């Protein structure tokens, strides 16, 4: 049984914005670093546009500041590349349930307090990620 249905794959931020408006996916999995418009900017614009899709953002660096910024602006998940399949599956399943998927290098702080307030924390056995469950 499949975990999710992939609607389409795009290669830059402008194309992502346009196709997301048409396809209206449940979840957008996007690299932050992309040509034309980065993933964070696309997320901001799509939220302004009113698209209810949940975002899982990815980057090549375990940058706590960037991850905190993404989550505080409404991303539902953050992954560091290279992404292994189990992490991707866990992130998609977590976000699809309405929970937030956060890597373990981020400690919940004041900046993302609105996001973490009242949520229960659970860590994976190997400590790679933290699940914030509503």
């Amino acid at each position, binding site marked *: 049984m499949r*975990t999710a249905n992939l609607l389409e794959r795009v*290669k830059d931020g402008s194309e992502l914005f346009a196709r997301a408006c048409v396809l209206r996916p449940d979840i957008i999995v996007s690299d932050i670093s992309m*040509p034309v418009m980065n993933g964070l900017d696309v997320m901001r614009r799509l939220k302004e546009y009113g698209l209810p899709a949940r975002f899982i953002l990815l980057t090549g660096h375990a940058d706590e500041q960037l991850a905190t910024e993404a989550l505080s602006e409404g991303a539902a998940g953050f992954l560091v590349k290279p992404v292994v399949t*189990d992490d991707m599956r866990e992130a998609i399943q977590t976000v699809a349930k309405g929970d937030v998927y956060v890597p373990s290098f981020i400690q919940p702080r004041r900046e993302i307090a609105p996001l973490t307030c009242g949520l229960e924390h659970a860590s994976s056995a190997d400590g790679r990620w933290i699940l914030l469950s509503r």
Partner: protein
Amino acid sequence: MRPTILLADDCEMLGVAIGEVIADRQPSGEGEGRQ
């Protein structure tokens, strides 16, 4: 009901990970190259 996903990136590694999730396959070479 399965969630629908729109993928945006130009990284083959991510495409492989997504592909395995979509197909619900067991990953091959899991953990290789992880930083």
